């Protein structure tokens, strides 16, 4: 039986009070609840404060480039469909630099769980606006606030018919752990946008700010109802719904590739007889 301790305890490079701590705790809980052992899990991350998270968990890690975790995760899933692949990165990583890959991952429905640590700011580079920063969010780079409207990832994902779309909040850690567990269990792409405070650079969307607004979706909410999901996607200013906003079963991407059905590509030797036949066709 896998235990919380199996996922280790690490010193972090995060600021005291940062929401990332709670997210890592929630992830650990979800992994344990999913009965996954460390070596069965691969975390892929980009660059940013959030993207350091996998270093604070005992598991396989590919900590790649800013914004590029989804393609890495996609490649890893295709090469080894036995790995449980989880992306952890920030709002800047996934919605800014990596925006194009998010669109592609949703369209592919690759079986990767994507945890977006959404603090509405670029943390590691010291507080510029991120794609989710709100109007009027003043920074050194944006003295009059962002020049663009915030990116509504939930709305875009639902509009694209993403197969699993959820929102969590670091301050509701158990609820979040539950969401992550569902996302991990989901067959196909799952997006969990996780709101969390950045105590150093986001003085607007603080813990209290989130706490006041966030509420769990009611028990009778039907995440398979597209219209309802679209509506929930726009709730923000006064009240922010937490939970699985939308869900729709689709065959995952990996199933479209015959060789993945035979397990990890790594074990598959060159079939010399087949190769000879292939070459024969050029004679």
């Amino acid at each position, binding site marked *: 039986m896998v235990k919380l301790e199996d996922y280790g305890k690490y010193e972090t490079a995060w600021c005291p009070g940062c929401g990332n701590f709670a997210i890592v705790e929630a992830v650990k809980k979800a992994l344990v609840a999913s009965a996954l*052992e*460390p*070596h*069965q899990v*691969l975390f*892929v991350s980009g*660059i940013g404060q959030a993207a*350091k998270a996998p*270093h604070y968990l*005992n*598991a*396989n*890690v*590919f*900590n*790649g*480039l800013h914004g*590029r975790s*989804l*393609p*890495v*995760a*996609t*490649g*890893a*899933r*295709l*090469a*080894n469909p*036995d*790995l449980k692949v989880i992306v952890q990165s920030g709002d800047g990583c996934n919605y800014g630099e990596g925006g*194009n*890959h998010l*669109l*592609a991952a949703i369209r592919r429905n690759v079986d990767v769980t994507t945890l977006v640590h959404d603090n509405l700011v670029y943390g590691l580079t010291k507080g510029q606006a991120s794609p989710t920063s709100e109007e009027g969010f003043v920074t050194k780079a944006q003295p009059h606030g962002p020049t663009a409207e915030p990116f509504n990832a939930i709305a875009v994902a639902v509009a694209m018919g993403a197969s699993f779309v959820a929102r969590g909040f670091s301050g509701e850690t158990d609820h979040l752990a539950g969401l992550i567990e569902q996302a991990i269990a989901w067959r196909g792409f799952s997006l969990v946008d996780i709101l969390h405070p950045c105590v150093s650079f986001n003085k607007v969307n603080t813990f209290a700010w989130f706490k006041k607004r966030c509420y769990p979706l009611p028990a009778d909410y039907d995440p398979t109802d597209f219209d309802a999901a679209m509506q929930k996607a726009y709730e923000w200013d006064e009240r922010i719904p937490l939970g699985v906003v939308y869900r729709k079963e689709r065959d995952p991407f990996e199933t479209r*590739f*015959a*060789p*993945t059905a*035979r397990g*990890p*590509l*790594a*074990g*598959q*030797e*060159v*079939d*010399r007889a*087949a*190769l*000879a*036949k*292939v*070459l024969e066709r*050029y*004679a």
Partner: protein
Amino acid sequence: MGERELTILIGGEAGQGLATLGPILCKSLVRAGYYVVVTQSYQSRIRGGHNTFAVRASVDEVAASGEAVDVLAAFNEETVGLHRGELTPAGIIIADGAFGVEGEDVLAVPYEELAEGRYRNVAALGVVACLVGLDEELVAGVVEGYFGKKGKAVAENREALAKAFAWAGALEPRYRRPLAAVERPAERLTLNGNQAIALGAVSAGAKFCAFYPMTPSTSIPLTLVVHAEEMGLVVEQAEDEIAAINMALGASYAGAPSMVATSGGGFALMVEGVSLAGMTETPVVVVVAQRPGPATGLPTRTEQADLEFVLRAGHGEFPRAVFAPGDVEECFHLTRKALELAQKFQGPAFVLTDQFLADSFRAVEPFDVDGLPPVGSYAAPAEFAEPYARYAAAESGVSPRLLPGMSRNLVVVDSDEHTEDGHLTEDLDARVRQVEKRRRKENGIRAEVVPPVYEGPAKAEVLLVGWGSSKGAVAEAAADLGGNGAKAATLHFPQVWPLVPEQFVERLREAKRVVCVEGNATGQLARLIRAETGFEVGERVSRYDGLPLTPEYILRELKT
């Protein structure tokens, strides 16, 4: 009797079927026992414009295309105007009688009588094939191979071919240009450079390719797609080139020998990923099919101007190997070698080809499938220290690489500088150790360099130096010089990085006149040789008009 060698040029618009007929003609020639070298020239459009498919067919082994045309098969009138000047004195033009082209050298074909509209192409093929002395049944077999054996179209094609052979067979001898008879050899393959790269990769165990379409690289993944299921490959079209290389790195990390193929602009987008491969020490083969730049340039033409770019691509310092195949066989074997080195030394290995070679069909001796040495994955070594550390500071620089999920050992890789166990670090001593560890891999890579090939007499009067796809042209130019009494030699680089000066610098020093022949404007290999050896190449032959280097071009430039 007959000709020992002929160049057949088929010209017409895009969409007229050159891209199908050309390969059929090639395969027929190869099956009949001739050697071929193909040069394809096309424009960045789907219909119209002017394209050519030129086959130099020969009784003897040839490795370069020539400029003179013996048989000009014109699919439109424009072709006649554009290429008549290239005809040899005895050259003939095969054109639709309907074009009304006149002249001694013109064979007007009544295609209308030979076949219906969509089968006229095959009729044209039949006429050409017959005139160069190919056997009808042989050609019919090749056509069947392309179009399948069943259906109405097959019968119609067969009939058109028969009529064409009958018609052409009845012509006066002055229209015939039969190649000298050869004994039909054991089976050979007809492959172009890109097919050979794809097949080389597959034969070496490549299991993953991500790509974003880009001429002239696209036929590599497309060839892989054809064989994906039988060979257990995953090939995926990515949303962009950045995704392509990052997918390949993810797949490689997880254990699939991986590759990407692209061209200059697409490669530009992969550069950050190349650096990531260097830092995480993830094997990946990157094929760059060159075309003239900068930017979009001439997307369907050829050039050799990305050598320095590929060599220095990526921020920071990390080892790499860069191969530059000179012919179709080298495409196959050097791609295998690139895969091997990428796996063995855990990082990026490059194959630098170009449009000319990518599209150049040749006759290739069959590969000894059972004899091909297996390419190691070098992952999951039997021995490593516990607890497992992905970047343990091995003496060779090559740390033990395990695969995630394949054991209880955790595989942690990081784009940040890292400790031996793969976690990001701010420890500057750890940094230094990792820099030095990575650099030590250079020794291993150096020890496996494919040396440049010197051909010709020692202490040459003229030494022609080249790399990559110009191999055949350079060799033939030197042979020509030699034929005229000069002591001419060649030095061909199938691998352009690393360079090991001891392997070749004496050859440069002892030659009287050293000329670097390159398909670029600034002399990139010449500069590289000087950087690595101090030797200054005195003369250069440069080509940058989008066409491949030919023996004639080199000889012309040498004279001026």
